[in-house]
């Protein structure tokens, strides 16, 4: 809501469907779970004229003259099933409006939002409600807990709204409480919990309906750094078990890099680049992104897979490294021996070798572009 | 609440009692009321009205009528009577309600059921201990002495005397009276009846000077020893014709009028309960009778019901003739 871009911001539109969007070949082949096409959200006096007059082609000066402000301009993204898709931007970049358009909490001014091939924007209210009830979950920055309900009452509420009977909804809610580690606190009220615990309730509540797609709107921004880190770990743990499609909003690049499969960088209402963390650091799309990622150590985003050479016979080493691990993660192994390291996939099969020197160079390198 | 078991436990008892009650009433009463609809008697918040209302109510009940009481506001009663929300009122004072009553009767929906026989007396009044301070009282001429005015003065009216008049809407013409008779007094209005007598009680306790408007029937003249000032007797001409009376140039050179206290009723109701209307028309009361009854309620702390029942029981000979239409 408050994320209004500065009217003067001028950004290169970067079509999300462009070839370099960080998608692995396997994923690119699949149908996106959620995608936005040429999304616009324009605030201002009689902004609904925007669609009629096809404001997509309107020069910035003309929009300013009419008192229109584009919070989202021509944004397109694809979120693949099972991936953690992070939308990152500073305050005012439009990320908050973006997630609300993706869920139709705010009606976009123009463009489409496709959910498994159906346009959320055009579909009848009843269908949208059904999708929100059973297939979407959302976590909010300030938790959005109901102060009048206990932990149990809060978590059971989405099920209550679906009309599920008390016994079943409370049983399910108890399951969720256990999942987020709040067992024993189910009869507390939100005011009796710490911030971190409150957000655990928010997470449990959003998962109670077992959604396919999970929206997290700056879920950890209101928390202390230590708690934030704990919850990020918790999220990763949950995601490993649940494998949801996640749309995650943050203004914290470290957080984005830590949890993202892919990141969309937003600036001034536009999506500037969509890429994996590694690509973002190694191949920033423009100066803005480059300056943004300048302080990020390469080792933190570079994965073993992108440095490894194809397997050449067997290597005698007790320490295989995972192909998906970052160089930072394998740092202790790198400095504790010599010679190439075997690289294994998730199944433990050897898929290649890692040149220890090349990896150490990345680890030692300060940051930034290759 | 727990409706079901309530009825379950009580229903048999209810039926038995109902049967018993009907048996008693049919045995005891010769007169059949014209209608079993409740007759609603409007009551007001002063004691004589409540006592008279209950006396009438008890008599009507003896005849077999169903009677309910409805608390009303003295001046705001008329819409209720015109619409039949209330059936009878036992007291309507000429001194405050004359015009309202006449207006309401003119609509044709309200009946003037005649005077009760009680007289509303209203006049300047002082406690007996003030007699020494102003020799010559109760003759009004004594008040003309400036010393007398000073005796009744309050700081903000000194050297003139302070006269506590009723609420502004009671009228009373006291400002004109003071001017016409040349009295060294300033008129101060009370807001309400209760406010007036609160001041009287306070002054009486301290034996402090007070000159005020007191009316009867009321408990105050019974509780506090005092006298009414003796002004030239009221005549209609006194209020309209300057030439009348001691001051040839001014009206109001006389005392206040005394007034009737009437009964009133809802016009439509007479078709429903003709005999009840007959009884209320015949209802008579006088100051001498009501005054001790008021005292019993206001000063001795008896309930209105006790006092009214007591009077009805003791005065069968008085009220039986009122109910001639019921064949008693």
């Amino acid at each position, binding site marked *: 809501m408050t994320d209004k871009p500065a009217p003067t911001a001028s950004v290169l539109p970067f079509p999300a469907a462009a070839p370099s969007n960080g998608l692995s070949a396997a994923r690119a082949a699949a149908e996106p779970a959620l995608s936005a096409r040429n999304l616009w959200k324009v605030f201002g006096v009689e902004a609904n004229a925007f669609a009629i007059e096809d404001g997509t082609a309107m020069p910035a000066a003309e929009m300013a003259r009419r008192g229109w402000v584009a919070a989202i301009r021509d944004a397109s993204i694809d979120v693949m099933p099972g991936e953690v898709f992070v939308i990152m931007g500073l305050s005012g970049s439009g990320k908050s409006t973006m997630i609300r358009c993706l869920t139709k909490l705010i009606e976009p001014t123009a463009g489409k939002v496709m959910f498994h091939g159906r346009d959320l924007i055009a579909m009848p209210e009843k269908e949208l*409600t059904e999708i*929100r*009830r*059973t297939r979407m979950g959302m976590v909010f920055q300030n938790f*959005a*807990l*109901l102060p*009048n*309900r*206990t932990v149990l*009452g809060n978590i059971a509420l*989405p099920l*209550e*709204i*679906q009309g599920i009977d008390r016994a079943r909804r409370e049983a399910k809610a108890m399951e969720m409480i256990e999942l987020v580690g709040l067992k024993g606190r189910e*009869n507390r009220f939100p005011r009796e919990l710490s911030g971190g615990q409150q957000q655990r309730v928010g997470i449990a509540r959003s998962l109670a309906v077992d959604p396919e797609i999970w*929206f997290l709107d700056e879920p950890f921004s209101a928390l202390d750094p230590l708690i934030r880190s704990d919850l990020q770990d918790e999220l990763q743990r949950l995601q490993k078990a649940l494998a949801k499609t996640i749309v995650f909003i943050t203004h914290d690049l470290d957080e984005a890099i830590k949890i993202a499969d892919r990141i969309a960088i937003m600036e001034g209402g536009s999506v500037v680049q969509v890429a994996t963390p590694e690509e973002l650091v190694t191949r920033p799309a423009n100066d803005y992104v480059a300056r943004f990622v300048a302080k990020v150590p390469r080792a933190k985003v570079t994965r073993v897979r992108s440095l490894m050479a194809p397997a050449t016979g067997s290597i005698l080493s007790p320490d295989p490294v995972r192909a998906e691990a970052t160089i930072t993660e394998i740092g202790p192994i790198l400095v504790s021996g010599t010679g190439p390291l075997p690289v294994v996939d998730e199944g433990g099969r050897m898929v290649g070798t890692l040149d220890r020197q090349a990896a150490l160079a990345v680890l030692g390198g300060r940051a930034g572009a290759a | 609440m727990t409706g079901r*078991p309530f009825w379950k*436990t009580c229903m048999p*008892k*209810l039926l038995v009692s*109902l049967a018993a009650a009907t048996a008693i009433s049919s045995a005891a*009463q010769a007169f059949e*009321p014209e209608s079993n609809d409740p007759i609603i008697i409007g009551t007001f*918040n*002063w*004691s004589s009205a409540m006592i008279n209302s209950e006396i009438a109510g008890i008599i*009507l009940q003896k005849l*077999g009528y*169903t009677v309910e009481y409805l*608390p*009303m*506001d003295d001046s*705001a*009663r008329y*819409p*209720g009577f015109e*619409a039949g929300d209330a059936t009878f009122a036992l007291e309507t004072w000429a001194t405050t309600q004359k*015009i309202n009553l006449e*207006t309401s009767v003119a609509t044709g929906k309200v009946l003037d059921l005649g005077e009760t026989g009680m007289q509303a007396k209203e006049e300047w009044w002082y406690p007996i201990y003030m007699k020494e301070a102003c020799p010559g009282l109760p003759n009004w001429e004594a008040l003309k002495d400036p010393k007398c005015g000073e005796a009744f003065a*309050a*700081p*903000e009216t000194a050297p003139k005397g302070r006269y*506590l008049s009723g*609420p*502004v*809407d009671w009228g009373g013409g006291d400002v004109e009276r003071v001017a016409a008779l040349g009295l060294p007094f300033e008129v101060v209005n*009370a*807001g309400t009846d209760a*406010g*007036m*007598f*609160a*001041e009287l*009680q*306070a002054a009486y*306790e*301290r034996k402090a000077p007070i000159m005020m408007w007191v009316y009867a029937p009321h*408990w105050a003249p019974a509780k506090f020893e005092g006298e009414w000032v003796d002004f030239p007797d009221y005549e209609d001409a006194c209020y309209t014709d300057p030439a009348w009376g001691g001051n040839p140039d001014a009206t109001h050179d006389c005392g206040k009028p005394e007034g009737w206290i009437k009964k009133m009723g809802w016009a439509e109701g007479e078709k429903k309960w003709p005999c009840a209307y007959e009884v209320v028309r015949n209802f008579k009361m006088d100051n001498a009778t009501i005054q001790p009854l008021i005292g019993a*309620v206001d000063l001795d702390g008896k309930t209105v019901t006790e006092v009214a029942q007591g009077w009805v029981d003791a005065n069968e000979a008085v009220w039986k003739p009122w109910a001639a239409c019921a064949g008693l």
Partner: protein
Amino acid sequence: MALAETGRMGGMGWRVAPTQMALMAAVLALAASPVLAGMLPAALVDYPKQAVIGLAAFTGSWLTWLAREAAIGPLRIAEITRGLANVVEAPIALLNTLFAEGIQAGRGDQVRTVVPPLSWLAGIGLAALLAHMVGGRQAGPKLVALIVVGLLYIVLFGFWTDAMFTLTNVIISAVAAIALGIWIGTKAVTHPRIAAPVEGLMNVMQTVPVFSYLVPTLLFLGYGPSAALVATVIYALPPMVHATMLGLRGVPPEVVEFGRMAGASPRALFWKIRLPVALPQLAIGINQTIMACLNMVVIASMIGAGGLGFLVLTALRKLDIGGALQAGIAIVVLAVILDRLSLAAARLAASGTRIRSTGIPHGRLALGWFALASIAALLLPAFQSWPKELTLTTAPFWNGLVSWINIHWFEPLDAFRSFTLIHIMNPVKAYLLDLPWTLVIALVMLGGWMAGGARLGLTVGAMALFIAATGFWDPAVTSVYLVGLGTLLSLIIGLPFGYVVSRRQSWRDAASLVLDTLQTLPTLVYLLPAVMVFRNGDFSALVAIVSYAIAPAVRYSMHAFAGVPAERLELAAMVGASRWQTFKWVRLPAAFPTLLLGLNQTIMLAIAMLVITALVGTRDLGQQVFIALSRAKPGDGIIAGLCVAAIALIADMCLKAWARRAAARNGVEA
């Protein structure tokens, strides 16, 4: 801090200048008004009689026509409204049967009660069980104790039946006002276009004296419980509407978004999310509405509601002040019980969980107790209604106390009264009454303009003109004089008191209890003792106003000074500010916006007392309303009432605009 403050003031110096000039002009005009009055043409000094619009007479005859003749088709309007009134009366009659009257059979003097109403023994038990049920494990025991002690007071002092009559009326009117208030408030929030008119209407309803619309209500609804009910609802509705609007607007947008994302239907979104989350705010409205309903008990009893209010009136009529006090306290007891019970129930309903199990089967216990108590009451009538011979009374003590004060304290009190009256009140009144009406209207417009801009200036000017044009100028000025002095006095006493009390929680709690009692005890109960000592007239009126209006002055002062941000006080301590400097530069500016709201409420309550002041012999608008009532002139009553509302609205709008500015300047939420 001080530097920053001055700097900011200096920064906006160019905006202050014209305001200051206007202010100086106003002061000059006020000082020179006697001279000015001599120079102006007479028509500009006293509003010319010929120019008075006959709005009152017109309204009166129109209302009479509407009530007596007007018809829609074959049905007269009054028949329709009376039909509705009968519908409304059904639930009252039902509750009265259950609680107060029972079922009677037979006729004439053979009427017998065949099914008794709820006995006090059963009533206390059931109320206690209810309290225990809604109070839960934590609040339950305390609530039960409160209810048992309170209801025992009512029983032992012989008020049970009357209290039940009052209770049924209050329950129905409070439920109606709360439901209607929530509905209207919700509509106003969801349809922004009607929000402003609704708020305006509520302000008018809150400030027009009840006696203004009593006669019209009777015309349309007839005498009886429904008229009392409607009058009560009109009076008690505004706080509920305001609280609902405030509460719903305060629901965090994220919470609403959560509800939408959970797929809540609009209905579920309202009932399960917005309303419960707004509950703390609604609770304030519920509290105020219940208090307002109980405030009306005495007035409602004048038009057929009976009950405790009628006891208060008859006791006062015979100057049994102790008796009136006892019945008044029974009203306060009902107020406190209803307030605490309804809050506990609302909290429970909003929590979305089952009644937390206390291991007690409330339903079965209630049945058992009811059966047992009812049988006991049948066997021993003392359990049905407390025997009159055993009734307690403290009335002689209170009457004696009043007499004692009257006899022993009269001299100093009377000297004080005379001094104030002769040297302060009378001169102020004379001065105000002599002010040219044109000058006053000009000043009102100036005040509005300074507080909130040109539009506000014109609005309040128009309202002042309405008072002049309808011919109520002098009574209105008298009202302003009483309200003004009353407000001033309330502030002089209330603000410092609130400041001192604000420092300790225990002092604050004690003060709150006293203020609650001041606000619910029927005013007349303490007004008459005041009249005994201070006599009829303006001084007693002032005492009445101050005793009622001091409550918000103290309350807001406590609240304002307790809410000064701690870091600002720490800053003051760090820079070594003296106690006075801290007060002047830190506490006062931070508390100022809240204090302004307190001033607003103080004025509103002072105005609400105008109608009561008429009872002790003032010649203000309240008296005009009473005269209209006693002469059955509904038009005059309504117009005089609207003039009261106009004064209230002028003060309210200007002060709120001013408070908004002050809050924006100080960065404190008002």
